[in-house]
């Protein structure tokens, strides 16, 4: 009796995770978090570097960086894959988040910089006597974290409000976002802007008082990034499955008709656009302490377009696809730039062309086409 109760409970539990709608994704999520939070730290700390299963610092930094990119890919997919709006300026939101958190990291250097001043080194170099007003509060972690979300969201809100209100869409919108990131890059390149000019922020020492390069700090940052990636995936999935998401998709496919039915597309687009920017900001804030540098080239036109190719490679309109795309493209990038640096641009260019010509649904679409014959056979028999 008791035994059967237990077995029923267990089977129910297992069913809940493995067979109910969405259960497989939940299972995958748990596996992913388990690997990121337990297995990787264990392999990194417990095993000696000679061991074949040892996860090196390089690998942790690389994977952490790519997970930040994956968050950006999810954000991009929300606005492009579900909203039908291709942004060529998402790099600017990513960089704004990075700069906001970078300000905090610069303040954490304290007097350990090369000039032993309270001010960041580049300000001493520029002969500034005090921090500009927008640096006030940046010594507080919470304020910096808030700023990393709020600054890109605010920029996106204002920009999006004006753009969507006048119903700019399609390639026009793409080009204007490109101009936005280009203008921001030029602005941040200037020393007078107060964000370190060409060199940006670098040489961080501490985060929350802990040494930023210690293995433990790296692992915590890695784990936080994995958690944020999982959370943004869950959030995005809830969003696109909701009524809101259905309206958003409808706007993507036939905006005029949605308007005729009585919805105002402006607020739907604006919400998802702002949310997407905020997610990028979070990703940027996580990226900076792991990579250890942020400079205006993050806002270059090419960087923002690369974000679009992660999503395109993975498959627009799916949520796992872009994450897979971000991993695939960036792993390929680190492999190419180490092994065949001169062929990387050829590969990337071909990737753009092949994906758009032959794989409009990306890897996710390929996966579905490969599975469909099997599924079709299954229903026949």
């Amino acid at each position, binding site marked *: 009796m008791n035994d059967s109760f237990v077995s029923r409970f267990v089977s129910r539990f297992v069913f809940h995770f493995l067979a109910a709608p969405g259960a497989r994704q939940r299972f995958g999520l748990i596996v992913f978090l388990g690997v990121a939070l337990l297995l990787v730290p264990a392999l990194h700390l417990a095993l000696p570097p000679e061991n074949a299963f040892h996860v090196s610092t390089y690998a942790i930094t690389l994977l952490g960086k790519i997970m930040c990119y994956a968050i950006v890919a999810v954000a991009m997919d929300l606005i492009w894959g579900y909203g039908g709006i291709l942004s060529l300026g998402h790099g600017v939101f990513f960089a704004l988040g990075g700069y906001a958190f970078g300000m905090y990291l610069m303040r954490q250097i304290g007097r350990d910089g090369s000039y032993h001043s309270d001010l960041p080194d580049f300000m001493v170099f520029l002969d500034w006597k005090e921090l500009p007003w927008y640096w006030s509060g940046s010594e507080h972690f919470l304020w910096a974290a808030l700023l990393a979300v709020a600054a890109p969201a605010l920029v996106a809100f204002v920009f999006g409000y004006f753009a969507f209100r006048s119903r700019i869409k399609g390639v026009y919108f793409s080009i204007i976002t490109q101009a936005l990131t280009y203008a921001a890059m030029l602005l941040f390149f200037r020393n007078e802007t107060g964000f370190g000019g060409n060199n940006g922020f670098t040489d961080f020492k501490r985060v929350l008082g802990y040494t930023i390069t210690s293995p433990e700090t790296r692992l915590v940052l890695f784990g936080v990034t994995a958690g944020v990636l999982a959370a943004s995936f869950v959030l995005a999935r809830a969003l696109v499955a909701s009524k809101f998401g259905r309206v958003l998709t409808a706007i993507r496919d036939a905006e005029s008709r949605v308007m005729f039915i009585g919805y105002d597309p402006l607020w739907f687009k604006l919400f998802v656009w702002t949310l997407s920017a905020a997610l990028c900001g979070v990703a940027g804030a996580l990226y900076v302490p792991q990579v250890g540098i942020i400079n205006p080239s993050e806002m270059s036109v090419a960087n923002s*377009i690369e974000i679009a190719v992660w999503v*395109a490679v993975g498959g627009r309109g799916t949520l796992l696809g872009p994450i897979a795309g971000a991993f695939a493209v960036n792993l390929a990038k680190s492999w190419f730039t180490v092994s065949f640096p001169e062929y990387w641009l050829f590969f990337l260019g071909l990737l753009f062309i092949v994906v758009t*010509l032959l794989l409009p649904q990306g890897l996710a679409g390929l996966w579905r086409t490969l599975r469909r014959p099997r599924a079709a056979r299954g229903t026949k028999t």
Partner: protein
Amino acid sequence: MSRILFALLLFVCAAAARAAPDAALVRQLADADSDVKIAAIRELARSADPGALRILRAMSEDGLALAGERVLIVDGGKVFDAATGAPVEGAENAEPVTVNNRIRGELAGALAALQLFDPDPAARLESAQRLQSRPGAGMAPLIARALERESDARIKALLALAHAQVRLADADPAVRLAAVRALSGSSSPAVKNLLLPLTGQSGQSGESDSRVRYAAISAVKAIEGRLARAETIGRVFSGLSLGSILLLGALGLAITYGVMGIINMAHGELLMVGAYSAYAMQSFFRSHFPNAIDWYLPAAIPLAFFSAALIGVIMERTVIRWLYGRALETLLATWGLSLILIQSARALFGAQNVEVANPGWMSGGIEPIANLPLPWNRVIIIGFALCVLLLMWLLMNRTRLGMFVRAVTQNRAMAACVGVPTARVDTLAFALGAGVAGLGGLALSQISNVGPDMGQGYIVDAFMVVVLGGVGQLAGAAWAALGLGVVTKLLEGWSGAVIAKIAVLVFIIVFIQKRPQGLFALKGRAVD
């Protein structure tokens, strides 16, 4: 007849009189008193005759000697009489004339002044420059005389300046006033700097005579006004120059975007292809026709056009053709093409910038008004851009192909229904747009660096022109390009290059709010 003869006689007499300087004056050169010597040097310099030049030059080279009451010029082994120029025999007891530093300085000034009458314009120019930088007192009549005889405009201007400078130091306020008035018509910064101390506004005590001071103040104001005007004109010109480059970059884009509704992100790389065509043609001329190297640029025009057009055709046939109606995908695919083109250029020509030289006829410039230099290469590029615009306009409005292109732009389906071969028109229009981009790159090679990444810098600007001008509109693209160029350059004068660029981008973003179709929208109804 007799009057001409008389005039001739007078001239000969005058020449003879000049050739022989006053003997008493020459004797004073050898006087024991330095002040007497200096007075004599000044007097001789003022006479401005060749004989005086010879004597003073000899004196400055320690070649003057005194034998009794006769002043001699000792030139190597030969000895002449200084006053008459006749050879003199046996002057062993001659005593050299001492020349101290004070006299040497005086001599240098006098020689410079005398050089103003040298038949060689280069020597005159050098002398005028020296005089202008350090005019000696009492030189005014001499300079005035030289001014009358001078024919070269540049030397004349320098002399006028030097003349006024000397007269400004005159003791008589009336002379100073006249000098200030004469200078007020100038438009050169040098004159302004000359007058500025007189106004008493720049910290110095200023001119003592109030009439002269007020005249100086108003003259400075007038010159400043003229300078500001020249600067503004210069800005507008550089704006037009930037605009012509933007126009060359955007014309092709306006066609491809207008006709096919696709965004060609590889457009900048087509510019690069054109620029490298110039480089290739230059190398070809260097190795095969080094004598005609100045003509490589005209020879590169067809190469730039057709190589870019060929790449355009290949791009259209292999990639873009399959993506019609999917504008965002085209954007990504053409970005991929641009990466491949950049890397190909690196593989073919190296990652470094290559050197493309201006042909001889494009270097230098003209200066239509003072202080407004217009380099030839910029002027020629403005002309070239206008020529390309004109040709494009003719092609679009006066040929059958142009008619087809316009038909497809306005209504693709209807054009196809009435028998326009839309697929071929697409290919040709794309090739045309690419070819024009190649021409733009050729022009760019003359004023900026030629390297694999050069196209990336122009792509955002070119898009802004197309967005601002309205889709598929040559006139719109032209006005937008020139307007953007001029506005950018005028803003740069105010606020610096980066802020100007950001301001222009913000302006375009705001502008699109008001007129999403651009400056020159196609009239008609469209639905999506």
